[in-house]
């Protein structure tokens, strides 16, 4: 395993460019009929999931990875980091193993860092500390198993972050997190500095520049024109030298899926990376390197949760209406009962149902944001998304109840057997027999 953080001397005038790409594909649900609640239908539309992941692999993951690998070979100073959700990893493994292969090739260059997240790309940080930790470790294991590296920096689902989440992640042994540079928490402070947790100065925070990132992810095509690599490089080069860290974070699907190949997005990627590599104003760094090389001067105190989503950069994309809260609360409320069943299949299903996308589909915020939501949704409306999810959940609850009843029965049987083997002696009888033994012993 490489340790890039220690490979270079600290240079305070250096400016770091962090490229962070998010890779995620949810397991989309089957259309579950209201009348089939209780009949335990198959929840996941794996035919659709396979189709989508194969398509996106062909349009995005494979060509983008090939391009990145090629660029790294030509310009070894190019570096990047990925966060690949466990749900995506599992689907790659099942449907398109060559994608995993291409990520492994990137991992082996030593120029690419892989971040940790919740395995099922969930809102577990809002469920319970115990569940959150379980999912984080599960993902770390998966990253190691598939890519052979141990992640050291964390990114929470949709960059959701708060002080409390930071504390939990620090306690799990991570060096830092990436979250969004949200104006309302930064105030006049800069997005382009390294910050730390208010109670733990060793736990660092890299902030995604939402403006510069969205210039690519959402504004690459403007009307008939596309953003040129030269223009974008100029924006970067105009960045004052007093700003040490520029973090660009976006869905990896931006390259080839959201913007198709014909839009020239791959040429843009190639152009911008080559130009930054040649200009040498910036040093490409991974988050771990930044944490090792840059001093953090200020604590960033984030009390209420922030995220990278929509205009409001809060939780409202997933928990912004009654339906979303209703659905999420129902899922959350099952934690104890699902765990009591100790049934791995049920636990896995419960976690797969926590994937944040399910709640995102139910978002009813229209206008600007709604467009983004409907782009990502395979449902005709947020209402159908809610109905379908709740139908699944209603069926799942029945399964959990049945399994708990079974588990209780088993528990009761064990108890009976234990009691048969260890007959209970009433305390008076016990005392008496002890006295008798005493007497017998004494009398000898």
């Amino acid at each position, binding site marked *: 395993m490489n340790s890039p953080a220690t490979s270079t001397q600290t240079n305070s005038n250096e400016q770091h460019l962090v490229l962070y790409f998010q890779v995620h594909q949810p397991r989309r649900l089957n259309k579950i009929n209201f009348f089939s609640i209780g009949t335990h239908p198959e929840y996941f539309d794996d035919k659709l999931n396979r189709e989508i992941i194969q398509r996106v692999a062909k349009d995005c993951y494979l060509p983008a990875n090939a391009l990145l690998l090629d660029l790294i070979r030509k310009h070894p100073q190019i570096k990047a980091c990925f966060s690949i959700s466990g749900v995506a990893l599992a689907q790659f493994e099942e449907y398109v193993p060559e994608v995993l292969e291409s990520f492994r090739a990137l991992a082996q260059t030593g120029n690419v860092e892989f971040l940790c997240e919740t395995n099922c790309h969930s809102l577990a940080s809002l469920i319970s500390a115990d569940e959150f930790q379980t999912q984080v470790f599960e993902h770390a294991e998966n990253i190691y198993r598939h890519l052979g590296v141990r992640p050291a920096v964390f990114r929470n689902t949709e960059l959701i972050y708060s002080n409390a989440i930071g504390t939990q992640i620090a306690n799990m042994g991570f060096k830092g997190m990436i979250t969004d540079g949200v104006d309302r928490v930064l105030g006049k402070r800069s997005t382009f500095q390294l910050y730390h947790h208010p109670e733990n100065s060793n736990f660092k925070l890299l902030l995604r520049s939402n403006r510069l990132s969205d210039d690519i992810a959402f504004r690459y095509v403007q009307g008939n024109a596309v953003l040129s690599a030269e223009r974008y490089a100029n924006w970067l080069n105009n960045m004052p030298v007093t700003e040490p860290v520029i973090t660009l974070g976006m869905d990896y699907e931006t390259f080839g899926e959201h913007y198709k190949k014909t839009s020239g997005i791959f040429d843009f990627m190639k152009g911008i990376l080559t130009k930054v590599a040649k200009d040498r104003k910036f040093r490409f760094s991974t988050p771990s390197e930044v944490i090792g090389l840059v001093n953090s001067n200020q604590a960033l105190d984030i009390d209420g949760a922030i995220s990278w989503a929509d205009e409001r950069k809060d939780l409202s994309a997933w928990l912004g209406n009654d339906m979303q809260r*209703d659905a999420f609360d129902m899922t959350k409320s099952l934690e104890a009962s699902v765990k009591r069943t100790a049934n791995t299949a049920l636990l896995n299903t419960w976690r797969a149902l926590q994937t944040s996308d399910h709640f995102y589909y139910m978002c009813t915020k229209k206008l600007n944001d709604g467009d983004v939501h409907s782009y990502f949704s395979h449902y005709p*409306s947020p209402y159908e998304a809610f109905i379908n999810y709740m139908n699944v959940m209603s069926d799942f609850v029945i399964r959990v109840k049945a399994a708990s009843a079974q588990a209780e029965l088993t528990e009761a049987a064990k108890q009976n057997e234990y009691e048969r083997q260890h007959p209970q002696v009433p305390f008076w009888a016990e005392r008496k027999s002890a006295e008798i033994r005493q007497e017998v012993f004494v009398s000898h």
Partner: protein
Amino acid sequence: MRVLMFGWEFPPQISGGLGTACYGLTQALVQEGIDVLFVVPKLMGDEPDNGSKLLSASNVGIRQVVSTDTEEQHFTRFKHFLKEGSFTTLEVPSTLSAYNMAHLQEPVHALAHWNYPVNVAETSVESKTHVTQSSTGSLYSFKGGYGPQLIEEVFRYAQVASEIATSEEFDIIHAHDWMTYPAAIAAKRLSGKPMVVHVHATEFDRAGKQGSEMVYTIEREGLDEADKIVAVSQWTKRILVERYDIAANKIEVVHNGVIPEEKPIPEVKQTLGSHVVTFLGRITYQKGPEYFVEAAEKVLNLFPDAHFIMAGSGDFMPQIIEKVARLKLSSRFHFTGFLKKDEIDQVLASTSVYVMPSVSEPFGITPLEAIQRNVPIIISNQSGVSEVMHHALKVDFWDTEALSQAICSVLHYGSLSRELKRNAGKAIDTITWEKAAQRLNNLYYELTSNINPN
């Protein structure tokens, strides 16, 4: 800008969406600074004053009326007459039996297919034509409405139109639905002014493939003559393109608006329980009542306490009642017949979910009225309203499985019902007549200033 507008209804003399639409639209047009001259068949004197000039067709003298021809001859002669511009005063024969078409002579059945409910009181009036002499010519006393004399009145209305077209100043002609197309054509031929026809419904919506040939012909003629066609939805535009062979670029879609509701939601007087599903509209082929019943049967399997209200009347009512009885659902169904406004409010106040399974609904104002009464709605994809209201559950009218599931979901998931109500309540404020009027104002400008965007 002065618009000569031909309508068939105006509040309070309305029996359906057309009158409401004309009222909302003219009100907004006047706000836009448009001068509207609105011609209706019959004015009762209690129309609300919205700033536009209302002209009752009954008060305009007719100086020529044709006699007993076949309808074909009538049509030809009518046109011919207009071209020549020869005016002669003729007395109208009292037995105007020119429209001796069998299916039109069965008023109740045929007319129940119209997009508008038949006013029973009027249909029972014997179809004698009243022609009175006046100094300006003969005054034809229009019944308005949709009685058995409908076709007859349509052509008389057209004759009145030519009167108006010669005596009034205007820049553009705007006609609402087929009843007024002959009038608009007459006015256009006399004045040479551009003509807009506004399609609120087509014969195809009303009767599917069983529509009246006569009505279809009149519609075709109006659509062909028009310089521009306004359709109330993409759905209607598609019908015009596919069923009437109209070039798509001749049609502009201008969605209807909804007049904000000011009256408070009434207290619920009687309640049928917490699961009340309501169908509100005419019980006719077009509105898909049988799909409502089939879905209800499925819903009752899971919600045995649910109640289904069918508010409205129409020619499908007997067979629907029979169907409900055959399925043994009568104790769960409530047929209210035709309801007045405050009765509708009462029904909606106790409704859990409103359902409109229309087979073909050009626009559909009632679901929006349900939203104004804080009721979540389920509508068919085959409706214009589904193009503008996104906070609704939408199903294909024939898919009773999907419909029943949608009903169950709204009944079962409280947060779904709340979000539908809340978001629809907000979104409805954006569906305004002002928007429609602005679009029309632009259209008028384009047509009168000879700008040809195509």
